[in-house]
């Protein structure tokens, strides 16, 4: 049995879990742990410039790999700075473990220097948390934290470590648990067979079926099975913002993203469907629009690993609790191939209808002579990356353009803050992606508002030589806010305009990177070409785009799913 200090145990337990990267920032309460990190090379530490970014990096790492991201911060402000990052991961069910330092046990509750009740502060936005009280409990707490974070519906877990228990002066026996089991935590993975049979019967009867695929399909690594089922049934497929890539974006059965800024054909398909198979999606308000008017003709089959997601906003006719992967296997086992041709023949009218909706070409936009349309930038990005980049996004108009105009053919390529909508997420997330995939192209699509929320990480990018490509759609305004102000507040642009924008090219250069300014359409393709020809350095593309462009289509408030504005003047 190995004897070691609490601090050494933390690092040893991370190794035993298989952690490759820790994103963090040192401080008083975690200096012992940092000293233990110094003594080894197995776990790489990434020094960030702000703890919020550490959480987003761990998040980007997790989203692009499926592995749990790890954060290490000190007590007090170090811990509270991670909260936005933790909440972001929580809303999107991303596996993350945050190790936070805490003041020594005997000072807890005394308002000691850099003391915060981190377990309390984070409680509403974590899946679970631990306040470790004895050094001997460290391996067990860390093993449980990783187990909880990445099983069932994944989510962030906080492990709060008081300074006295990680003290290097005392040694304790180190035993890493070989198996974690908890009597109070046993997520259901396999769907109830009776429910699965009902689901299959409903799918077979359907004349207007649709697969509505969410982030749960990506979490469950089920995209292959989603494609298999969709092709067997010949059913149209729509993905949520979180589900993009779970089904190939260029597949002929893909009708696009659904929801507030979904395509006309996706929302029409949903609204007119008689059988919706929801796979790891949660009927979010940004999808359903007015729930009272939601898909009136459909039998809803809802497959989700979290029972609390089922019938939360929209009542499911056939609830199936289980992992998307396992339940899809169960469904596929019950589908008899001989019945399928007859089944597929029934769908001819349905596809004819969908083709008609598609012919409206709702994503068309008018690109003029010189002012660049933001959509055009994303199309150009797609072309220059062959559709194979990892695209991390910030939050706003550019996020919607990147979701709609860059078809994702593979899961885990589209990285965005869907649930919480965290501006400042994109750059650090792309850094996490780049650490996980050093040879891949990691792109950030951002805007002049979002990029300034974590721009300090340009410094971290230089330290670790991350050749990220930043595509900043600069419209000199907070675009999405401005769009709503145009639409709802009669064009009163209250505080959505920034007339003191920095020179982003100089800023990138000041941080030691390459900056490229693009002002007119004629320069766009050449600049993109140049950007992606530089493979060993970070490139910041500051692209001036049309300030007055809106994201369309857009659902009309209080309406049904398919009540949409199609442009500034047209609606359904």
């Amino acid at each position, binding site marked *: 049995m190995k004897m070691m200090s609490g601090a050494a145990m933390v690092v040893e337990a991370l190794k035993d879990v298989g952690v490759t990267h820790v994103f963090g920032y040192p401080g008083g309460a975690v200096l012992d742990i940092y000293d233990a990190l110094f003594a080894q090379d197995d776990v790489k530490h990434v020094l960030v410039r702000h703890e919020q970014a550490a959480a987003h990096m761990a998040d980007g790492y997790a989203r692009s790999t499926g592995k749990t991201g790890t954060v290490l911060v000190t007590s007090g402000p170090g811990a509270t700075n991670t909260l936005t990052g933790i909440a972001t991961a929580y809303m999107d069910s991303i596996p993350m473990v945050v190790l936070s330092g805490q003041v020594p046990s005997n000072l807890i509750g005394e308002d000691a220097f850099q003391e915060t009740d981190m*377990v*309390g502060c984070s*409680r*509403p936005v974590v*899946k*679970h*948390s631990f*306040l470790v009280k004895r050094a001997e409990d460290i391996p067990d707490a860390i093993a449980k934290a990783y187990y*909880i974070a990445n099983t069932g519906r994944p989510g962030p877990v906080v492990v709060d470590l008081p300074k006295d228990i990680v003290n290097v002066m005392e040694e304790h026996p180190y035993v890493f648990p070989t198996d974690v089991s*908890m*009597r*109070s*935590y046993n997520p259901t993975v396999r769907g109830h067979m009776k429910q699965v049979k009902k689901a299959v019967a409903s799918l077979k009867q359907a004349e207007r079926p649709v697969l509505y695929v969410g982030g749960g399909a990506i979490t469950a690594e089920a995209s292959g099975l989603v494609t298999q089922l969709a092709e067997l049934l010949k059913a149209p497929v729509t993905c949520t913002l979180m589900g993009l890539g779970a089904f190939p974006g260029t597949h002929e059965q893909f009708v696009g993203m659904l929801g507030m800024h979904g395509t006309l054909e996706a929302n029409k398909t949903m609204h007119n469907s008689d059988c919706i198979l929801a796979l790891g999606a949660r009927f979010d308000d940004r999808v359903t629009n007015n729930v009272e008017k939601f898909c009136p003709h459909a039998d809803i089959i809802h497959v989700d690993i*979290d*029972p*609390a997601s089922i*019938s*939360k906003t929209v009542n499911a006719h056939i609830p199936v609790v289980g992992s998307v992967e396992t339940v899809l296997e169960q469904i596929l086992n019950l589908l008899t191939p001989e019945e399928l041709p007859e089944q597929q023949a029934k769908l001819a009218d349905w596809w004819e209808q969908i083709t008609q909706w598609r012919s409206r070409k709702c994503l068309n936009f008018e690109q003029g002579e010189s002012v660049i349309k933001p959509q055009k930038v994303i199309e150009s990005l797609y072309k220059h990356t062959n559709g194979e980049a990892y695209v991390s996004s910030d939050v706003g108009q550019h996020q919607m353009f990147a979701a709609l105009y860059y078809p994702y053919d593979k899961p885990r390529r589209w990285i965005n803050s869907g649930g919480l909508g965290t501006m400042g997420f994109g750059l650090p997330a792309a850094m996490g992606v780049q650490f996980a995939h050093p040879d891949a192209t990691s792109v950030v699509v951002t805007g002049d508002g979002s990029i300034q929320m974590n721009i300090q990480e340009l410094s971290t990018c230089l330290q670790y030589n991350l050749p990220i490509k930043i595509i900043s759609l600069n419209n000199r305004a907070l675009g999405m806010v401005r769009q709503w102000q145009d639409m709802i507040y009669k064009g009163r642009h209250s505080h959505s305009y920034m007339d003191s924008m920095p020179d982003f090219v100089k800023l990138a250069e000041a941080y030691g990177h390459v900056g490229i300014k693009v002002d007119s359409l004629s320069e766009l393709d050449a600049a993109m070409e140049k950007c992606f020809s530089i493979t060993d350095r970070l490139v910041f593309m500051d692209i001036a785009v049309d300030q007055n462009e809106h994201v369309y289509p857009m659902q009309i408030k209080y309406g049904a799913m398919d009540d949409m504005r199609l442009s500034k003047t047209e609606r359904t």
Partner: protein
Amino acid sequence: MKRIISVLMENAPGALSRIVGVFSQRGYNVDSLCVAPTEDPSLSRLTIITHGDNKVIEQITKQVNKLVDVLKVIDLSENAHIEREMMLIKVATRNEAIRAEVKRNADIFRANILDVSLNNYTMEVTGTTDKLDAFATTMAQCTEIIESSRTGVCGLARGERALRP
């Protein structure tokens, strides 16, 4: 509609705050809450009285069940069950007539007098929430209530049904 949610959970630090947190975060009501360790000291049993329609109650049970510390959750009010609450109540007994009246009513409600002093009686009464309400109303009619403290409801299912790990 009033519901009795019974929860079996780990008797661990922070477990209670997580459950209470679910109620405040998601805007559910807590009318009363009663919690203590069970015969197995590693487990706690918690009873929450809440109200809401079926959809709200379904969400409450699911969200509470989702907590990592929680082993089992049931809605006791869905089936036959027993519920009890205890109240300690201190009332003024300033003269002989009041003392007699308080004693008479205490006997009717099967309340026990636990403490007697020159000017007041302190009693214990156990029963359903309605019975305790009725006793308090009766006491208020015959004298002045000085203070009272109630435990909140605890309950068990009747018959074979049980909440076990």
